[in-house]
């Protein structure tokens, strides 16, 4: 498996056997660390700003310096206000987002795993064309398809329903490609042949043997699908007109437009706190699953 081989590499390059400095074990550099601190600050300033300002009242938001705390610590009040505003519509958006993520990203992972595995382990008629069409589709701008998809869905009566978000989320060409790479790397053909000799059907072999070997790849694809669905904005923006079906992204943008618009309603504190609540789960998932996104991106970038 690719991760295992990489860990060995890391150990070899940072191993403590040799004390002297070398190309593979250079001295630490304060100047370079400071350079990276600039990157760190750049990445963190907006997030820190969000954290600090979600603790402020509307008044403090306008009257105090952006990166320092306000006169009153109102984080809890803001959270309560966010989830109770407009009869708790924010919680409805959160539930919608979870629905789209679980069904959409879950389905995308399932379909990509089956198809990537099938393409890697079977020679079947149409396989070459299948692969070429799916990978070619990556270059087609997703938004070029948005308008025709909307028109198509509206004729089928699917717009303004959860299906209009879930069905397009089910396709992840990148996920299919990742599973294809993982299958070639980690599912030995001899093992499948042994299972065939024992009389196991292809599907049974897949669900009892291959899925376990593919587990790290599947988690990686699931992670990227979850992020893509959680962050999806354009698709729900065009498909949905009923706020009851909005995901968090579209809902927050609507609040923001309300706050900044002509008939401005001062709900900036709700936009700030709502944004914070939106990013916390996804950031936590990323921090917990670090190993997987790193191996996923490396598999995607190295093979090709």
């Amino acid at each position, binding site marked *: 498996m690719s991760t295992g081989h990489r860990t060995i590499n890391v150990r*070899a*390059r940072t191993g403590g056997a040799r004390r002297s400095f070398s190309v*593979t074990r250079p001295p630490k*550099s304060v100047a*370079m*660390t400071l*350079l*990276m601190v600039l*990157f*760190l600050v*750049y*990445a963190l*300033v*907006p*997030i820190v*700003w969000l954290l600090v*300002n979600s603790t402020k009242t509307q008044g403090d938001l*306008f009257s105090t310096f952006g990166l320092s705390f306000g006169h009153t610590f109102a984080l809890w009040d803001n959270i309560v206000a966010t989830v109770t505003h407009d009869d708790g519509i924010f919680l409805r958006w959160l539930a919608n987002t979870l629905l789209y993520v679980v069904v959409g990203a879950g389905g995308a992972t399932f*379909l990509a795993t*089956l*198809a990537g*595995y*099938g*393409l890697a*382990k*079977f020679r*079947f008629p*149409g396989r070459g064309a*299948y692969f070429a069409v*799916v990978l070619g*589709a990556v*270059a*087609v*701008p997703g*938004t*070029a*398809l948005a*308008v025709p*998809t909307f*028109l*198509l869905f509206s004729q089928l009566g699917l717009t303004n329903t959860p299906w209009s978000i879930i*069905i397009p989320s089910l*396709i992840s060409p990148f996920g*299919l490609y990742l599973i294809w790479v993982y299958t070639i790397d980690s599912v030995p053909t001899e093992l499948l042949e042994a299972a065939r*000799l024992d009389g196991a059907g292809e599907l049974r072999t897949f669900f009892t043997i291959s899925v376990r070997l593919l587990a790290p790849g599947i988690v990686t694809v699931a992670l990227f699908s979850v992020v893509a669905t959680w*962050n999806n*904005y354009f698709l729900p923006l065009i498909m949905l007109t009923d706020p009851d079906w909005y995901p968090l*992204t579209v809902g927050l*943008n609507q609040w923001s*437009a309300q706050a*900044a*618009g002509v008939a401005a309603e001062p709900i*900036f504190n709700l936009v700030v706190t709502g944004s914070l609540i*939106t*990013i916390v789960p*996804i950031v936590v998932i*990323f*921090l917990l699953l670090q190993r997987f996104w*790193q191996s996923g991106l490396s598999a995607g970038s*190295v093979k090709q």
Partner: protein
Amino acid sequence: MTTTTPYTAPTGEQEASRTTAESSTAVRRRRKDWQGWLFTWPFAFVFVFVFITPLVYALWLSLFQNQLVGGNSFVGLGNYVTAFQDPSFWDGFGRVLGFLLIQVPIMLLLAMVAALAIDSARLYATGLFRVVVFLPYAVPAVVAVLMWGFLYSDNFGLTASINDWLGGTVLQPFARRWVTASIGNIVTWEYVGYNMVIFYSALKTIPTELYEAAEIDGARGWQVVRAIKLPAVRGAIVIATIFSIIGSFQLFNEPNVLQPLANNVITSSFTPNMYAYNLSFAGQQYNYSATVAIIMGVFTAVIAYVVQMRGSRKEDR
């Protein structure tokens, strides 16, 4: 298969039986050729529904015109001729092209600097930098733009504080001349860490022996970067460039979310994608909207293809 025991005959027999078994499965597989579709049909089914059908439908739509008087009529390539003479389309196209030529190189250069620094093993707290610089990628574009929109704003943003501090209005993120740069900054913030991880992952696959060989040859610092690291990540650079080209030509979320804050500056045809969106959903001009979307799709695919070809040709040399 090797063995140290004197009983070689059974092993030979086992091997012989295994080869016959293998050939028989091969035959069986050839007969059951269609089994691959057992795994691949569900993806293919949905793919045709959400990718192929809309694509064909868009091509079909772009050949017609819908007018109040006369209804739906076939106009051939008429919509394409209109688009190529449409200043609104070219205005947006010029903007994303400029974005592509300025923002993408800056972002990829920054990502490469960060990846090389993290891979150099010369940093304190390497892991911290790797994770935190990547973190913005997990933030939804809408939230990223809202946060930067607040930072940019005159009311309570950092811009206002900096302007107060310097006196006057030095920073004007929403002014006509600066708004594209302001968006460029947001996009850079979102994706610099993502590209860094792509480059870093490619750097990690360079075998240690290569560095040891370079060390024996007396190569140091920059020489190692130029002779070993940059050539090794060429494939990753090509991929990151293609993703960035696609992203730039599709630019929509950032200007769309920022629009209420910079109302008179971000027009409805600010980028080709915003133009296509507004043609459809504000103007009901579905046929023309599909035409604009298709032209942008073709441009994107052609440029991505050229980059891919040039990138891989260099690799062969």
